[in-house]
């Protein structure tokens, strides 16, 4: 008697357990969605009452996270894994289909396929396309001017005074040894390509033979634009007399014409020759010793205008 009933009752038992599991999962999913509703409403309240970044982020995260969790429980536990099998065919069309397509294609072309004429026309069409493509490049040329002298010259000229970033003109006494200051032409403050760095050195540190341009009482002036990729060479290590570029750590020897000591820069910093005028102000004696900034293909190592 038990032998026939046992499997049936076992099946019923299993079925009941599965129902229970699903009910439990449904309750969890429901809790998740309720949490999402509460979090979303709380977000609404926080926002309306003035907003608070951290709280908004957390509530948004809780709301979405709860929806995600609810959906995950739903699909994993209530619906459960399913498996379907789809057929797959090689991507390549069967040979007959290819042949049929080709035949239909040539059919459709009909008259125009007469060999000589078609090839001739195709060539002309190609020519028209290429010419049009060339013509349509023209508008792109409007996007910017052709580089002229800008790459080679700056706004520094003989006689123009050095000024700091606020526009104050500088006298020799303003700079003490081991001090650096960013300078511009007094009539072109903030001109990016004219930016220069004026360095005060101790007596005897400068090696005049190495320097291409003039200095004033231990003060030497270099372009501030790194010759590597153009960052401002902003850090000065007075002890070593080295200017350091923070972008890729090129270092330049201030005492020896700002030659590259280490790092990836390919050439030293151009020097600005300086002197003083009758009133004691520092002035430029000309433009930089060579083009400033990152190198480019037709760079020359001469001072502009020579």
């Amino acid at each position, binding site marked *: 008697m038990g032998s026939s009933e046992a499997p049936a009752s076992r099946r019923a038992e299993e079925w009941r357990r599965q129902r229970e599991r699903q009910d439990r999962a449904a309750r969890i999913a429901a809790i998740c969605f309720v949490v999402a509703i509460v979090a979303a409403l709380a977000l609404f309240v926080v926002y309306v009452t003035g907003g608070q970044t951290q709280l908004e*982020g957390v509530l948004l995260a809780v709301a979405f996270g709860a929806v995600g969790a609810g*959906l995950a429980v739903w699909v994993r536990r209530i619906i459960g894994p399913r498996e*379907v099998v789809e057929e797959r065919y090689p991507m390549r069309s069967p040979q007959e289909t290819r042949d049929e397509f080709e035949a239909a294609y040539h059919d459709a072309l009909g008259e125009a396929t007469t060999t000589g004429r078609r090839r001739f026309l195709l060539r002309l069409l190609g020519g028209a396309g290429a010419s049009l493509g060339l013509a349509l490049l023209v508008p792109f040329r409007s996007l*910017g001017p052709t580089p002229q002298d800008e790459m080679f010259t700056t706004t520094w000229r003989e006689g123009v005074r050095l000024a700091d970033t606020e526009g104050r003109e500088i006298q020799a006494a303003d700079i003490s040894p081991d001090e650096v200051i960013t300078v511009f032409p007094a009539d072109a403050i903030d001109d990016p390509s004219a930016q220069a760095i004026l360095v005060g050195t101790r007596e005897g540190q400068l090696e005049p033979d190495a320097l291409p341009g003039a200095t004033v009482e231990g003060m030497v002036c270099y372009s501030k634009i790194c010759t590597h990729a153009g960052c401002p060479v*902003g850090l000065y290590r007075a002890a070593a007399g080295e200017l350091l570029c*923070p*972008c890729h750590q090129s270092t330049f020897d201030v005492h020896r014409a700002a030659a590259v000591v280490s790092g990836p820069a390919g050439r030293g910093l151009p020097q600005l020759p300086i002197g003083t005028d009758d009133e004691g102000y520092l002035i430029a004696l000309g433009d930089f010793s060579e083009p400033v900034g990152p190198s480019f293909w037709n760079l020359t190592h001469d001072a502009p205008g020579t």
Partner: protein
Amino acid sequence: MSSSQKARQSPVDDLARWLDDRLRLAEGGRKYLHKAFPAHWSFLLGEIALFSLIVLFATGVFLALFYVPDHRLVVYDGPYVPLQGQEISAAYESTLRLSFEVRAGLLMRQIHHWAALVFVAAIVVHMLRVFFTGAFRRPRELNWVIGLALLLLAIVAGFTGYSLPDDLLSGTGLRIGYSVLLSVPFVGPLLGFIGLGGEYPGTDTLGRLYLMHVLIIPAGLVGLVTAHLVILMRQKHTQKPGGRARQHNVVGEPLFPNQVMTSLSLFAFTVAVLALLGGLFEINPLWLYGPYEPFEVFAPMQPDWYMGWLEGLMRLWPAWEWTMFGVTIPAIFLPGVVVPGVLFGLAFAWPWIDRRWIARDEREHHLLVRPRDNPLRTGIGVAGITFVALITLAGSNDVIASDLGMGLQTLTWWLRVLTVVLPPLAGWVAYRIAASLGTGGAEDADPASPGGDDEGDAAAPESLETGSDSPAGEGAARS
């Protein structure tokens, strides 16, 4: 659809019927309900990228409503005290306003930035999965190429994006980008001038970056993602061998409801994580950097992680600058243009390199392999990862040097040696390990799949003779 039909009357049913009346959807739609999605967590990486992109679009639209791409100077009078009274660009001002005055503005900005980081990361990890399981093999070369193009676009999107706020950090990144453009022989200066509308810093720079960032690049992303997905649908998913999976079938969860709900759940989780990151973890606090001044800079400076490899290349590369026949090859031309070009070129060409020299197999594949099944490919992949990881590390060499209490020169020297020595070594070790594990997976292949069209790279060399136009067994597979 006649009204006499006995049908349930829910609004959804009504809508479905209305649509089918006009678009004849039921016929084709039925088979999509049961489209099979092979289930494995690693198949969801691409979805994370897609969902991050959706978050990027949503938050990006919000940001665009407030951002002003304008260089013109204004006096800051907002609530951020340290900058009050300073002259800053309207662009920077609008980003500050967005961060401090627009409700939920900072949250949106930070979610947007985090989503960008996750977007690129998900693409990269997805790509690695595809690489090591051989999912790029015929017929999926096209999607490999499209995926890489997406990676490139994602990087450019990130770069143009963080150049927009016009703070000190963004301006510096832009300056370096311009210098790289400038370094191209013969056309560099012209390219630079055309790009910025004149000499650096240019007059129209922000407007152009903005247009790129909100129109041109997103259009490209949408187009390529669409193509990627259409091709995926057409070719169907790859799958791991085992169980009922064969070369000629797809075994997995049905699209509806399982895959749809799984994907929705993953979408919600992705948004949740991004919201948490954006809410709690400060990213790019541009008010601290101050406005961009061409003569100012701070250290240490770090770009977003996906630019680190380029930054590292520029830091590691020796100061080689030559002048030949009056033409100067600037120091940054090789590390800034040539090497990245070669790296991406190799990656684009990989499916063809693989079929010619690595797997020597031109047949169609729908079953994935394990990394151990092709030790050579795995070795090369590991070497590549090691190389990119090292140059990315080099992108922070100043920070690492000070953390280790090591001289910067010494560290850079070591990193140079390591980038040359370590990748081949790591690749060789990976090769040995993969080879010693053996290709046990090859036996999983479907015995019913004709003509040796199944997996197993051991059998590959013979297939060289078959030529690309006559993959053995295709005709038989149809029968």
